């Protein structure tokens, strides 16, 4: 079949005609992206609220009567699941993936727009199912976000009867939603790129989202399998994971099931999930750094290979989450080794980001601040990951606040910094308005310093051995009194960070109403989304003719060129100097 641009294909672009088809049942990738993002951010706010309740309990035990032990465990569980799945996964793939892939690849829309719409509504359904668990008898599950059986479905765990069912159902629906979206993202990248957009000319944001989606499509089935099987153990009494067990003096009907099997399945999803969140972040931050340092990304090809290598390796490290569950020492050695090997491609990326900044014409714009903040935070969190990847170091630190500090730095704060950087970066394109610079700077500094005030001290309490997930540790002889002081400080910092997020929302609302017009390309960026004929881009993105791409995404500060950037769709004849003539081999 000869190549036919989507614009020239027979079927019509589903042009929306009414308010409902334009903004609600929309098949436009940009509207779906915003629907995904808004829903995910609302969930994120809810998850943040839960973490504040946890912090209040830890700093001021015996003060808040409404934070009972059961409620605390429910907060822990829902906070974890919401942040990992319903905020970060949904936002980076459903939100940014939807917005950026067609625009950056020069397509008019996703290749399966109807399925794309369905994906969002399934996601919303999964959110409803999850939130319904607050209204069922017993409330939401308090099993911890890992939902380990047997504890997750036995009396004594909050929400063991209904909450867990709602959680599992919600996850299953989410996975279906993700699969529908994911098929779209991959197929669009493979099939609908505009003329001249070779794979190796794609911006790294698209690379990150593309590879993360592949990882997600292969890893989420593991969560699906484990969710279905726990659900059956709970509902119809199979014994896939449930061993023979006594509960309240009664012998239950279960026999011979393997809780370890669940852990293997769960973490076979759980570890790649880290990279489902991290890879889009890596990609987006590369584009932010390159654009705001006015310099081509250092080692583009190596960056792509590193993304692919990290994705492949992420499938062979899962059991490092299970060192304390017990395993053959040779397995432990294997998983520790693979875990440490992941540090190599990851370090390549960090070096390349730093080298991109080196001698760049750095502009400390708000997105750039967030991107640089990310490099520090990610390096911090990544280094503690090397500690935990070693079996002998992991054993004493396991289930302490050291682990909490590690993964919040590496996959909590780091992605969130990029998330804000990306929102500030693309806000002018999405809305056509400029945000308020001062408010955004306050938001950045309060968030960055505040989160360090929250998580740096947690490393120290972790090394002291303070266990995570405990409602209260009063009276434990190995915990010095000073830990309580630290906890109060952390809570104050956390409340400050939470309050500082209001600056972001005030900024968004204020800018939407009163922001200055941004123009079509305020950052002088090279990638295609900034070259659309309309800002914000209209339905179909490109007007009558699709763009054609003549160069990679990083032609910044090319010598001999009048401007310090050359858009990807600028033909070579319109300027005399190409990169090769200047010897950038």
């Amino acid at each position, binding site marked *: 079949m000869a*190549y036919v641009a989507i614009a020239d294909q027979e079927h019509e672009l589903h042009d929306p005609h009414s308010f409902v088809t334009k903004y609600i049942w929309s098949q436009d990738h940009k509207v779906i992206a915003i629907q995904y993002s808004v829903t995910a951010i609302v969930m994120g706010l809810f998850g943040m609220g839960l973490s504040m309740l946890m912090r209040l309990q830890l700093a001021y035990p015996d003060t808040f009567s409404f934070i009972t032990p059961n409620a605390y465990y429910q907060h822990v569980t829902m906070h974890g699941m919401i942040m990992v799945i319903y905020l970060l996964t949904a936002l980076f793939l459903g939100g940014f993936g939807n917005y950026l892939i067609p625009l950056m690849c020069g397509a008019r829309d996703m290749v399966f727009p109807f399925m794309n719409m369905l994906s969002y509504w399934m996601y919303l359904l999964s959110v409803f199912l999850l939130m319904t668990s607050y209204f069922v008898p017993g409330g939401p599950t308090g099993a911890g976000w890992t939902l380990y059986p047997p504890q997750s479905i036995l009396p004594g765990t909050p929400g063991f009867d209904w909450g867990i069912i709602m959680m599992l159902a919600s996850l299953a629906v989410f996975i279906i939603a993700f699969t529908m979206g994911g098929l779209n993202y991959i197929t669009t990248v493979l099939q609908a790129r505009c003329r*001249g957009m070779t794979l190796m000319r794609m911006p790294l944001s698209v690379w990150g989202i593309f590879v993360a989606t592949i990882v997600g499509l292969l890893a989420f089935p*593991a969560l699906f399998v484990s969710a279905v099987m726990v659900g059956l153990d709970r509902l119809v009494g199979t014994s896939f994971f449930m061993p023979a067990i006594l509960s309240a003096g009664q012998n239950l009907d279960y*026999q011979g099931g393997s809780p370890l099997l669940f852990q293997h399945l769960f973490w076979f999803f759980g570890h790649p999930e880290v990279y489902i969140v991290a890879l889009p972040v890596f990609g987006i931050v590369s584009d932010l750094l390159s654009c705001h340092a006015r310099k081509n990304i250092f080692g583009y090809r190596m960056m792509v290979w590193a993304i692919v290598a990290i994705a492949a390796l992420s499938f062979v490290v899962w059991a490092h989450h299970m060192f304390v569950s017990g395993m053959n020492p040779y397995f432990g050695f294997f998983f520790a080794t693979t875990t440490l090997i992941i540090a190599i491609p990851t370090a390549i990326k960090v070096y390349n980001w730093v080298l991109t900044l080196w001698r760049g014409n750095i502009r400390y714009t708000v997105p750039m601040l967030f991107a640089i903040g990310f490099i520090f935070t990610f390096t911090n969190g990544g280094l503690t990951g090397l500690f935990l990847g070693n079996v002998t170091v992991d054993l004493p630190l396991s289930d302490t606040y050291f682990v909490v500090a590690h993964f919040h730095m590496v996959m909590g704060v780091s992605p969130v910094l990029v998330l804000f950087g990306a929102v500030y970066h693309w806000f002018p394109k999405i809305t056509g308005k400029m945000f308020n610079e001062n408010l955004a700077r306050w938001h950045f500094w309060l968030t960055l310093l505040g989160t360090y005030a929250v998580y740096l001290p947690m490393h120290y309490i972790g090394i002291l051995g303070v266990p995570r997930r405990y409602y209260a540790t009063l009276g434990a002889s190995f915990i010095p009194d000073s830990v309580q002081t630290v906890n109060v400080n952390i809570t104050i910092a956390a409340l400050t960070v939470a309050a500082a997020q209001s600056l972001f929302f005030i900024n968004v609302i204020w800018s939407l109403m009163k922001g200055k017009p941004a123009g079509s390309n305020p950052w002088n960026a090279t990638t295609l989304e900034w070259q659309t004929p309309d800002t914000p881009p209209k339905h179909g993105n490109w007007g009558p003719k699709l763009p054609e791409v003549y160069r*990679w995404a990083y032609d910044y500060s090319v010598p001999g060129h009048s401007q310090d950037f050359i858009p990807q769709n600028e033909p070579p004849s319109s300027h005399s100097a190409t990169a*090769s003539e200047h010897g950038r081999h």
Partner: protein
Amino acid sequence: MQLSTLVIALLTAVLVWTLLIRRLSAKPWIQAGAIDAAHNAGPTTLPAAKIGLWIFLGVITSLFALFFTAYMMRMDPHHAAGVTWVPFDKPAFLWVNTLLLILGSLSMQWARTGESQGRINTLKTGLTASGFCIIGFLVGQIVAWNQVREAEFFALTNPAVGFFYLLTAVHGLHILGGLWVWAGATLRIWRADKVISASLTVELCTVYWHYLLLVWLILFGLLLST
């Protein structure tokens, strides 16, 4: 787990090799300028739905590989707390179902051949026969379920029985999804009365049917051998 890791490693390797390696050696920073001949043809010549189906098959492969791995790990006495896996006699009726599924796949292939040669009657007959074979398979699975239920009294704590229901149900659901697409295509072809614009749908249905037959053969082998 080892099995699924292997399958996924294999999938990734194939994907990387076929799609990426050749292109990933490009040096975009020194190749600015003209769109070279290789890219004049656009990113790929395959229709989107076909790529979408193959990616979807990748997802299902991951799903079934994980189910099969869980099956084998649950059987392994090192993983289970005490031996509770009691093998039971699989209903002989499953052989009939297998035959139906094979017939369904064959007649779908026949329909596809008819379609490519422009023989509308072959297409119609093959497509219809295939669907009814598949529906027959599903009915047969329910019969087999009932036979197991009568023999085993829903002894679900025996994971051999639990897995039998679970895996056949998951496979059956995927068949149902395929039937939905099949029904749409069949209706369209009967109404249109000529071989129009159905080639892609028929091709995709054929691939999907063959794929589900393969999954069933592996699953059936697993059930019979344990």
